């Protein structure tokens, strides 16, 4: 799992069966200092509460689709939690 920030939303009216009603958000993966790392990806919102600007954690690969209401769907990144705080030994980033 990795930290990411929601930077946008994706609206798709035609989706693969099983993805109806699933919010798709653009997330930017972050390093542990909360600096962007790599390119942004589209992630399905499994918590159904995340919105732009929020710090979340995402799970990738096959496990992402397991977070969906219908577990056999073509999803490879899913938001599985909204982060309240990240604490490190060097202090909060």
């Amino acid at each position, binding site marked *: *799992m*990795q*930290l990411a920030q929601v930077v946008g939303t994706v609206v798709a009216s035609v989706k693969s069966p099983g993805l109806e009603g699933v919010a798709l958000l653009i997330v930017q993966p972050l*390093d*542990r200092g909360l600096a962007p*790392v790599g390119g942004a990806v589209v992630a399905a919102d*499994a*918590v159904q*509460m995340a919105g732009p600007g929020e710090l979340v*954690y995402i*799970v*990738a*690969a*096959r*496990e*992402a*689709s*397991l*977070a969906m209401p219908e*577990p056999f769907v073509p999803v490879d990144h*899913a938001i*599985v*939690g*909204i*982060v*309240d*705080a*990240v*604490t*490190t*030994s*060097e202090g909060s980033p």
Partner: protein
Amino acid sequence: MKLARVVGTVISTINVPVYDGRTLLLCDLIAPDGSPGDGYLIAVDTVGAGAGETVLLIDEGNSARQILGATDAPVRTLIVGIVDVVEVSPGEGQESRAEAAPARPTRSRARAKPGPKPAPKAASTAEASTRRARSRRSA
């Protein structure tokens, strides 16, 4: 499996139900000799690891779900062990033996007996010596 060092925690109240009541730890990946590796991972703790400890990570979904006993959980990264010592067999150069820090017994002792904070005690000692010095001066 991967070697990592626990560097912090991730606190979250809104999450997928499988994470309820579980500790998420921020783990920096490290090389066998203890030097920084490639990136970090957020892992679910299953062994009671703490900050600063070297741990063993699983980053594979089927194993993770099997350990948690949750067949359909969106979990992939778990802490499955706390490393005491990593020993790399000597190659061309010198022998490499990286002690995982801090040692586990030290941590358990620290947890079992919190003890009084040293700072106030030191302050009171300093105060006492000042008082002694003052009384000496007045006498």
